[in-house]
């Protein structure tokens, strides 16, 4: 039986990990992730959940311990944010390179300096090329569901890639809202036990994991990840449908989610919680007879190029919101990639909500107004103080 509780995004993620029956957790606290690992610690302390919890001394060690545990053949979980994710950077490549289906919650937070504990996407965007699948959830319900789905995707034998579920710091991590919590047995039946075939450390079958990747083999290992990322698109879509069949919830087609796209001439493209605020504005405008659409990118990696092209066919004004910047190219990462995806379209890129700058409905309205007037590719900062 599903039960609804009013909980934060971090608690939702912790419950997701518990439902997924993870066997080893290795984590280090960091704002705004901490509640997630605290809730897990409490589950274990109360005897509600029998996972091994390694209270490591850094995020680098958190990822290293997850790699060690995953390579031994158990389901693992960790959570981090910002500086913690940056500290893990080197290990992220190793997790994907070794094809370990580790699942991680990243509570999106800006990077120092100056130190800032609030939301933007710079931390996870910086890790976009690490070979991790990245899912950006829009609310607490999706956070919980995505953690469960993440294991199904990561452990698929055609994929074997780690998955990062990204949720907006504070905006989701510290906000309570009603979340439907799936039945534990149902989730466990759905996911089963993780029993890797490709690799596990076992004296009865001694293998060597993480050898020297000489020039004769290294490129192939990269191509393998490339191919797995491509296959992941299919698997993510399939898991989205499976999940709908069993738990009655789905998120677009798993990769992208459209809102009010029919007959919309103007469409905003965004990721994460801001999509809620955009929807709010779209509904308001609709009352006034104005038609604006939203295309939410749910999986930033793999990047759903084909779906985007298809869904934005015929759309004239495409505005891309970025909660990150690429200094020197002077666009946001999503803006750049949308430009590459829709080569024949006018793309306007909006840098918004860095370091916790609130993105208000009037900011969204300003973007729409600008977008409709804008004639060429342009990047604009929104919400900047004069």
């Amino acid at each position, binding site marked *: 039986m599903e039960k609804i509780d009013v909980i934060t995004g971090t608690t939702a993620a912790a419950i997701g990990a518990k439902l997924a029956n993870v066997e080893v957790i290795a984590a280090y606290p960091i704002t705004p992730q901490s509640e997630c690992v605290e809730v897990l610690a409490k589950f274990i302390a109360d005897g509600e959940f029998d996972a091994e919890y390694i209270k490591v001394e850094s995020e680098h060690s958190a990822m290293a311990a997850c790699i060690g545990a995953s390579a031994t053949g158990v389901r693992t979980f960790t959570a981090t944010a910002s500086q913690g994710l940056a500290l893990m950077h080197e290990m992220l490549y190793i997790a994907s390179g070794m*094809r370990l289906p580790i699942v991680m919650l990243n509570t999106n937070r800006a990077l120092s300096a100056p130190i800032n504990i609030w939301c933007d996407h710079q931390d996870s965007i910086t890790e976009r090329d690490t070979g991790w699948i990245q899912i950006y959830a829009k609310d607490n319900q999706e956070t919980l569901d995505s953690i469960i789905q993440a294991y199904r995707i990561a452990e698929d034998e055609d994929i074997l890639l780690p998955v990062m579920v990204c949720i907006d710091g504070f905006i989701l991590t510290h906000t309570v809202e009603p979340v439907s919590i799936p039945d534990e047995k149902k989730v466990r039946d759905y996911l089963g036990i993780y029993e890797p075939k*490709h690799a596990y450390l076992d004296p009865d079958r001694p293998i060597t994991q993480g050898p020297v*990747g000489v020039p004769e083999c290294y490129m192939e290992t990269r191509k393998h990840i490339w191919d797995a990322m491509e296959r992941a698109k299919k698997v993510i879509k399939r898991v989205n449908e499976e999940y709908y069949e069993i738990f009655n919830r789905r998120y677009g087609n798993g990769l992208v989610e459209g809102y009010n796209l029919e007959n919309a001439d103007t469409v905003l493209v965004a990721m994460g919680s801001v999509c809620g605020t955009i929807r709010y504005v779209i509904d308001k405008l609709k009352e006034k007879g104005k038609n604006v659409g939203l295309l939410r990118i749910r999986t930033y990696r793999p990047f759903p190029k084909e779906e985007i092209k298809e869904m934005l066919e015929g759309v004239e004004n495409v505005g891309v919101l970025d909660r990150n910047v690429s200094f020197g190219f002077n666009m946001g990462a999503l803006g750049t990639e949308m430009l590459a995806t829709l080569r024949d379209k006018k793309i306007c890129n909006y840098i918004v909500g860095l370091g916790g700058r609130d993105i208000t409905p009037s900011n969204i309205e300003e973007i729409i107004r600008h977008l409709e007037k804008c004639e060429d590719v342009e990047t604009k900062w929104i919400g900047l103080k004069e």
Partner: protein
Amino acid sequence: MVTIGAIIYEPGSTVRNKTGSWRTFRPVLNSEKCIKCEICYIFCPEGAIYEDEKGNFKINYDYCKGCLICSKECPTNAITRIREEK
């Protein structure tokens, strides 16, 4: 074909790599002088010294790199060295 994750499934597969070709000097074990103290056996970095079915110690020249630790450490001077000729 490169394996997924570059995992090596064949334990001890370096045996394919015959490092005997690295040798400049060749240790030669005189079984008559050998007291089977196992000193050369345990100190060989290659594990190239082995005990045959008769309990005699032998040097596997497929792998011996000619470091001569065995010769140096042998308490009875049972292992001499000769220049490798190729």
